[in-house]
């Protein structure tokens, strides 16, 4: 039985733990605290209510500037993962939709961006097909093991015309 809710400060150390069990990209507690102190409303967790364990999370933030240096408020997914034991239940989809809503409504984001390994088919399926992300760019050797990343975006507001 998994409950999806906004993260509380006590959850941060359990989010860190969940991340260490899922992904090779890890961060110290301070980075989670930083997200929590500034963008708490964008942090969502999936909690197994039988055990009280955090089994999935999304860690997200806001940025005022575009990659091109222009001012354009947007969200960014720092990290997203779900424990293997709780895959295929649609949990990633649910935490993502919650954070999308809050990026849009609270921060008036124009879009949300994320990076994904080009080989990660399951994640690509979620982002592209279920959540409506588009590939914006490919970043060469983005990951520590030299794998490329797709830089993906999902637009909440009208895309500005290219100049």
């Amino acid at each position, binding site marked *: 039985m998994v409950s999806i809710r906004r993260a509380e400060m006590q959850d941060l150390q359990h989010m860190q733990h969940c991340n260490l069990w899922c992904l090779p990209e890890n961060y*110290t507690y301070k980075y989670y605290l930083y997200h929590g102190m500034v963008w708490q409303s964008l942090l969502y967790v999936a909690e197994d209510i039988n055990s009280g364990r955090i089994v999935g999370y999304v860690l997200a933030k806001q940025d005022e500037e575009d990659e091109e240096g222009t001012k354009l408020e947007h969200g960014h997914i720092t990290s997203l993962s779900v424990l293997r*034991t709780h895959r295929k239940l649609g949990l990633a989809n649910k935490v993502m939709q919650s954070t999308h809503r809050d990026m849009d*409504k609270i921060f008036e984001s124009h879009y949300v961006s994320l990076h994904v390994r080009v080989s990660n088919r399951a994640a690509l399926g979620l982002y592209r097909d279920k959540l409506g992300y588009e590939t914006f760019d490919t970043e060469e050797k983005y990951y520590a093991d030299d794998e490329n990343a797709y830089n993906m975006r999902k637009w909440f507001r009208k895309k500005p015309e290219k100049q």
Partner: protein
Amino acid sequence: MKSTELNAKQNNEFKSLMRLLEAKDYKKGLKNSEKLLEQVPDNQEVVSLKAIFMYYTEEREAGLALAYQAVLKNLASDFCWHIYGLIQKAEKNYIQAVKCFIQAINKGEENLQLIRDTANLSIHIRDFEGNNWLRQKLLNSKPGMVVNWVGFILSQHLIGNYAGAFNTIKLTEDVIKKDIQNPIKKVEINEFKLYQIQLAIDAKDFQRAKQNLLDFKNDITDLVSFYELEYEYFIKIGDNTSAIQSVKHLLDLQPQNWKYYQMLQKADPQVDLSIYNNTLVQGRLLAQKEGDSFLNSFLQFIDPFFQKSLPSLFREIKHLYTDPNKIEIMKKAFETYLDKSQIEKLWALMLLSQHSYQIKDYNQSLELINEAIEHTATLPELYLIKAKTLKKLQKFKEAYESADRARQLDLADRYLNNQTIKYASLANMIVVSQDLLSLFLKDGSDPYELQMIWFELNIGRTLLRLNYLGPALQQFNLIFKHFQEMCDDQLEFYQYSIRRYTLRSLLQMIDAIDKRHDAKYFIQSAGLMIEGLERLRVRIQEQRKIEQKKLTPKEKKLLAKQQQKEQEEKLLKEQFSIEGHIFSRDIQKRFDLSGEQLLDQLKTQEDIIKMQNRFAQVLIHTNFNNKEVNFQAFKQMVGLYINQQKPLLCAKLLTKLRNNETEQNRIVNHKYQLMLIQFLNKYQGTLLPYIKEYQQDLIQFDQQFWNDVQIKTQLDQIIKRHCEAIIKEKPFEENLESEDLQFLQEYPQAKVEYMNLKQTTHPFYKYDPNIEWQNHQIKEYQEKQQTQPL
């Protein structure tokens, strides 16, 4: 004092020293400060500067001492206090640092940066009164800055001065309006308004809360927070009808949040949740059904999982195993899938294996999972279930092998890799654990920098089991360092969050960090730390004895035995690379993986006890919701406090043990309780006046305490006989004496135990060689039997 005053040239020298300090050029600073001191040896401010340069050029202790000397020789100098405070802050001795900075501020230091830093430090050490005073000072110096106003509001909130805070908010709104240069952002308005509502609710100023909720609704874009606060307000004023409306809004926003359904039930106890058609609610509602109605709903619930091939089903229904009437029904439901398609048969076998595991029939569970593996050999989940079962059967090596099979089926999956590490360390395979971990570590990184507490705990536990005390203790020590790091991480965010108006998050952080030790990993590692230290203490004690005494033949024999054991340990050490061979020498040294530096601080019994007490002090105040975890840690403190003759702590510990009694730990738990009670009996007369001094402890003290002493003693006798009955393979009741029966009937608490005895299916009273704790208990009993017959 003329001789100490600086002339114009010297003054310039002094200023250039300050610049060197800012530029962190400590070496040059030290040289130049020594030169200046040749001219003005008694100028304590120059001495202070030399001290801080020394401190940062690897003369830590001398620098610290010199800075202290300078303060003593010139107590009136704000500069000397300031420098000494900076060193204390670098030492992470924040309480001292705040004291020094406040001295400096009181003596005229007007540096706003210093006042701000001190204010943040004062929140850090939770000196909210001091923080309030400093924020006021900041506000007085720069009333045009909005951030100083917001900081002042928070400081009033923290000391409970709500009226003051409301007043300041009003003034702040005006300052915000006037500050055209830095217009407040929409998201900041949203946060500030939400904070004001929370403040009104916290202050129980419900009139204001009501008004705020009405007035601010249009400014607030975070509807989740808004309706949560609105709900809280309506519940507090007893308006449940409106609270129901708030929670319905919340359910529209987050229909998968279980907390909201609980809130709905609280506001409307009659509510019919079955109208909410999602797996979360439907799964929960299963618990309320019985018989055929349960079977039908259960089949309906599990079928989609079979159709979509979801291996996570068991976790979704595990909570139903608390009801014995449902267990057979669920088994039957799973069995109906055995005769359907091949894939459904596979899931059925897997679930039946998990079912057997859950009812503690591990052999059956193993048989079923093997059958499932025979059916499909490529599903990692099956091997993990097998590993879990093998662990229960104490076949650790095989459990590791099974987990490793799972890992090899999907090498890119970190979860499978971590599981394999866990089983490897359970099988004492330290090198394998480290190698596996390195597969997911980037070059040059290590688990200690990344605060990989779960790994440290597993390795530490293994090292302790193998009696490598130094390295084991250091693993636990590193875990505590991480908890300390968590606490220190806050420092950067106080001011940050005030500037961003995220005061609600700030308040939550303060609360969460204060409760950081209420965590499974902390409690487990603190318990193990105390245990490891105890072994170290005994080892040192015995060495002392041998050194001091002339040996009798018997002792010589013992000594030879011990030396042989040490020899074996040494051999083992050579087999395992306990220092962590995959890590560079630099990492090994930086994190003291051999534990040498730690052992250096633990040379005498007094050192060890001091450190044990440090952990015990934190541990005894923890509050965590897993009784088994709590008990395993708390029992480590029993011997510690009895040896130190600490009756009040023993009394407190007794309460803790009793609150964490479970079916699984009952017998061992009683043993420890009894030890405490026997010790406390000595204090019966003198304890009472002693207790009066400690009202707080008294509150936790059960009024029935002295009565219960007798009850527990007698109950313990009965438990002894219970063990006896197990060994003689007699039904328990045949082993009871008539007075036992009378006793069991007499005391209500004991009666519950007695009822349990009558149910032969109760696992506690059924001897099962696979239940580890029973074996342990019986072994302990038999050993006792040999030395002191009943």
